[in-house]
């Protein structure tokens, strides 16, 4: 099988997830080539073809221009599978390429068996297998689902160019907001999820965090609802944490949340649904009402 991996490059830097694409390629087997709008000065180590367009010429991510460049690489390489990371880059660009070539796309792949790809659905509560019915396909892989591979070798570089007109003007980046809470360094993080029910109940979780001597975290829905500020958010769009103990209170466990905390030393989850996806990563899942269990645990600790 021939794979064309779509690497990511931002502000002069190759993103770490590119190594996960190489990890996926090694896992599924086959001949891998890499597409990158990047720099000839920061070529990733691997042996194979590198289809390279110069980021200095084509700028930061631009959907139409990157699509046209990638279509040129596809035409030349004729891959069986075009592989993206399921990221703000991958989920934006992949459907454009799939539509141009009228190929099946499978999103956020976490595993495979033959040509069936395992994906999550229903907020990651369920899984299913999706099989492309086109002979070639486009997939995006879930960040963190395949181990990163530090490959060796130097690729043979094929330079790409296009005169495609841009339809989207890139204005600039906004850096992440300054944080008054440094969850990344905390030894214990106690996080509140939507299961706490209402804003006032943040205090129940905060009390447990205090009793443990830890920091207060939160899942995205709690932040979006305005119950707590973004500085507390754990997950792929918030902070990534690796404390010795992570306590998830009323967090069902979306992929984005799991990506930000699954490497914690010990994970205690409290949820009234014993099938909640947080159970996949939890060392202990306590099936209980957060508002009953958490105050009782706090009382015993204090």
């Amino acid at each position: 099988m021939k794979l064309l991996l779509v690497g990511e490059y931002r502000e002069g830097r190759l993103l770490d997830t590119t190594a996960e694409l190489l990890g996926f390629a090694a896992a599924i087997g086959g001949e891998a080539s890499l597409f990158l709008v990047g720099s000839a000065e920061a070529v990733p180590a691997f042996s194979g073809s590198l289809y390279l367009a110069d980021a200095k010429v084509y700028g930061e991510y631009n959907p139409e221009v990157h699509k046209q460049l990638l279509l040129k690489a596809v035409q030349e390489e004729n891959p069986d599978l075009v592989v993206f990371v399921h990221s703000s880059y991958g989920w934006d660009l992949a459907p454009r390429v799939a539509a141009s070539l009228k190929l099946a796309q499978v999103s956020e792949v976490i595993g495979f068996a033959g040509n069936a790809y395992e994906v999550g659905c229903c907020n990651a509560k369920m899984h299913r297998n999706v099989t492309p019915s086109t002979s070639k396909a486009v997939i995006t892989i879930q960040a963190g689902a395949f181990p990163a591979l530090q490959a060796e070798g130097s690729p043979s570089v094929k330079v790409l160019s296009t005169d495609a007109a841009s339809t989207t003007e890139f204005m600039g980046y906004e850096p992440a907001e300054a944080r008054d809470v440094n969850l990344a360094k905390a030894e214990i993080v106690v996080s509140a999820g939507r299961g706490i029910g209402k804003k006032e109940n943040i205090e129940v979780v905060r009390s447990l965090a205090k009793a443990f001597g830890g920091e207060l975290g939160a899942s995205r829905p709690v932040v979006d609802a305005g119950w707590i500020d973004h500085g507390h958010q754990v997950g792929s769009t918030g902070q990534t944490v690796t404390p010795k103990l992570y306590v998830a209170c009323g967090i069902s466990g979306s992929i984005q949340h799991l990506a930000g905390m699954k490497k914690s030393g010990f994970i205690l989850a409290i949820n009234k649904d014993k099938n909640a996806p947080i159970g996949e990563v939890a060392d202990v899942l306590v099936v209980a009402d957060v508002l009953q269990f958490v105050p009782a645990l706090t009382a015993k600790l204090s």
Partner: protein
Amino acid sequence: MKILVCIKQVPDMESHFRPNGSATWFDESDLAFRMNEYDEYAVEEAVRLKEQLGGEPEITVLSIGPDRVIEAIKKALAIGCDRAVHILEPEVASREPWQIASIIAAYARDKQFDLLFTGMQSQDRGSAQVGVLVAELLGIPSTTTLVGFAWADGVVTATRELEGGVKSKVRLKTPALVTCQLGLNSPRYPTLPNIMKARKKEITMLQAGELSSEKPLTGSAAFRHPEKRGSGVVLEGSVDELVEKVLVILKDKTAVLR
């Protein structure tokens, strides 16, 4: 200005899911349906733009599915959409992103919409494909994962959410399509007077098969609960028992309790 908002009706994600007979998707019986959460932000953003422009834009809300999707459509009308299109498709569960996008594009093609809003993904299928596919089929620019939106003089200025809290700002000329991320705005609840008013708004019904006969590009199978990967234990019982058990485990397995 003409605006199209595409919404999907999905099961409540707190539901207990069971596979249907062929395990291609969930069994719909006993499930309560609601508007896809991402689409609530799309509806709200469209209505805010209409209000910003003094009510001039006409907002059409579109949903594909069986009769049950009328409930989601009515909610969007009560929030402030002007008219609705219900594209009847009893077999919506077996229609995959390419087919759904083809149906929407076929409907929108000759309607001269200036702006199209969708959620960035659905909560149930989560492919994050349909919005971009619609834009590609219509040959108009699009951008995804919006946490900020502004429109002035035919130009959209959008803030996209990237990874780790970083955002990017992009500009695109209308006609254009944008997909909305959670947290873009604060979706309002429909008020009773607006729910009553919405009853008089027009809902056009079309048949999906008359708009597109595209074949599926993917097949689905083995809808299931995930295999347990970790070696985690599940504890059940009374709260007092649970607290005692958890304290014993934490003392035994972690170095954080003294």
